């Protein structure tokens, strides 16, 4: 019943907005809460830009319980959840001691295009690292023009696959590499204790300057759709 106290005209007008053709909603999405944890051991890496990768993880409480049984509750209590980030191609790694309760972290990368893998686990008081999960491998993008000139050509033919063409370089140029950079040595980065960082996860992104080069040039794009302005 609508329109109590309304004039005839107002009742008619108000009726325009009645959802008469619509059944009541059965499923209330508002009651859904994103889970704090999915109770699995996993860690993922995403590339944000040449300077930063984003790591997020989940941990299965049962794994920690089992670890506690194995190493003792006191040792577990003194342990730290950690990310061990390494370069699977060229070696080198660093440990990031994670603050309690964090579920993701921005990891500062090397200045060169490089591949990374993360192991998520626990560093025991003894310094031993117990792995709980291993991430995917990501590669940060190269920045700036390559010193090698393209010389290999293929022909585009309508209706035919261009095919998986191999990249080539001019005579005397550097060897082709997936990342296109100069030969890399092992990754060297100091360990990082997030607990003594002045702010929480993601803070470094705001505080540290983005490296120059191509990423600092004019980038007007990305504005898309009506709601984007």
């Amino acid at each position, binding site marked *: 019943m609508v329109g109590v106290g309304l004039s005839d005209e107002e009742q008619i007008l108000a009726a325009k907005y*009645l959802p008469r053709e619509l059944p009541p909603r059965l499923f209330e999405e508002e009651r859904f809460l994103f889970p704090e944890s999915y109770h699995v051991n996993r860690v993922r890496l995403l590339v944000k830009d040449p300077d930063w990768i984003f790591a997020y993880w989940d941990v299965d409480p049962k794994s920690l319980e089992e670890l506690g049984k194995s190493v003792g509750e006191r040792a577990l209590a003194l342990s730290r959840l950690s990310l061990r980030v390494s370069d699977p191609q060229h070696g080198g790694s660093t440990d990031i001691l994670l603050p309690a309760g964090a579920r993701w972290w921005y990891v500062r990368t090397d200045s060169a295009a490089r591949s990374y893998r993360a192991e998520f686990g626990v560093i025991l008081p003894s310094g031993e690292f117990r792995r709980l999960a291993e991430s995917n491998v990501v590669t940060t993008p190269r920045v700036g023009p390559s010193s090698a000139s393209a010389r290999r050509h293929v022909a585009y033919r309508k209706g035919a696959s261009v095919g998986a*063409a*191999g990249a080539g370089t001019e005579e005397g140029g550097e060897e082709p590499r997936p990342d296109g950079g100069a030969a890399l040595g092992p990754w060297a980065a100091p360990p990082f204790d997030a607990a003594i960082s002045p702010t929480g996860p993601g803070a470094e992104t705001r505080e540290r300057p983005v490296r120059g080069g191509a990423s600092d040039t004019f980038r007007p794009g990305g504005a898309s759709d009506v709601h984007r302005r």
Partner: protein
Amino acid sequence: MPVGYWCPVLHAHLPYVRHPEYPQFLEEDWFFEALNETYVPLVRVLDGLLADGVDYRLTMTLSPPLVSMMTDDLLVGRYERHLDGLIDLAGREVERTTREDQRLVDIARFYLAEFADIRRIFREKYGSNLLAAFRKHRDAGKLEIITCGATHGFLPLMDPVPQAVRAQVHVAAQHYRKHFGADAAGIWLPECGYLPGHETYLREVGLRFSFLESHGLTDAHPRPSAGAHAPIVSPGGIVFFGRDMESSRQVWSAESGYPGDHDYREFYKDVGWELPLETLGDFLPDGLRKNLGIKYYRVTGKVGLGDKQPYVRAWAMEKAASHAGNFLENRQRQIEHLAGTMDRPPIVVSPYDAELFGHWWFEGPDFLNYLFRKMHFDQDVVKPTTPSEFLERFPDLEVAQPPMCTWGAKGYAEVWLNPGNDWIYPHLDMAAVRMVELAQRFHHPNDRERRALNQAARELLLAQSSDWAFIMKTNTTVEYAKKRTRDHIARFDYLYRMLSAGGFLEEPILREFEERDNIFPDVDYRVYR
């Protein structure tokens, strides 16, 4: 033969916004506004060019969500009512301005005629299905229509679950085939987001080319000899065209770009915010103000909104023609310069958001109209082309590996991955993992299970729209973006739990999900295997 080529690309996309559970929904206006100000006016321009024998070329993404909305009966019906209401309002505005403010009468009459013409084109000429118009221009050989990610998912951040990337590409390709009767040759990677290796998924569905931000080519390895002004092919077998920054800046830049000219229409001064509420009651039933698309003032200059001067349509048209001439002259000079440094004709690729033309820059479609005509009739230095046409004419391609890149601020993923929106990725990732798990587990589902599996795929795809992360970053309609992320993940979560724990799938709830999120009616969950 021209000295070089210009390849304009309009990326037309809106997120899938459809709320049958409400009689009106504010965010559906995004679609209505874009139809009124961009898509229909563009079709009108293209129709005029075709009728006048102008040999134009244009490449357009019509993203699957946009195509789905253009063919959705509920949204089309609501749009037509919205347009009818605007015509009614414009008529009343002619009367009001005649009474109250003679300075605005001409422009009020313009809106009345404009909305009536939009309705004529949409309803009478194309039977309320604008895809027919785009297909007509495609069949005439002037327009190349390309596809996009199924729901504009930002592919580089989906990479940990390869099936999620594949599904975005495969569902889009199938959707394109259904609506355009052929396989798409090209794809606009959502947000121009490229990650090396994703070529595999594109090739699986026969896609041949795409576009990258200019540093995708200039930073490629080995270094392409023509920078961003000749396409390359990656070792993964996809041809990439590079965005030309000079021509982009001329249109995009808020400072030096054309849309900021003082004679053009002012975007931010709309009757929806200025007229008394009782005048606008039909449009604002809840009393909350919004843009309605009737704007009486011009940019004027760097003055406050209260000091803006009335819009003069004739002045704006003169300026659009003048800017088209300037743009053409700049392209001629640019191409002549580039040609002197290259062993083949250069191509200048200019991608823009389609909604820039008309919605943001009201005179944008007129600018394109003048530009194509001047290019056709007045000179031979530069000719418009499409990617497929250019590749047939100049098939020789250098091989180089582009780096990860996007067209977002700073050129990488920061817009879609930052402290304002990063919390969504663990949940999107887990939903994708679970979708793959369901797809691999259910080989012989019963009918209801199959419907639930397909609906789970729809919910995941909709949750992945890059629009939600973008809105969270830009701080516009953040609550709506969060709501959409939550709603789709919540529905997915329900379906996953019911399917995986042997729970009871309630038919009314499943039907509610299907009716609400009805995109991709033909989706097959097995795409996630």
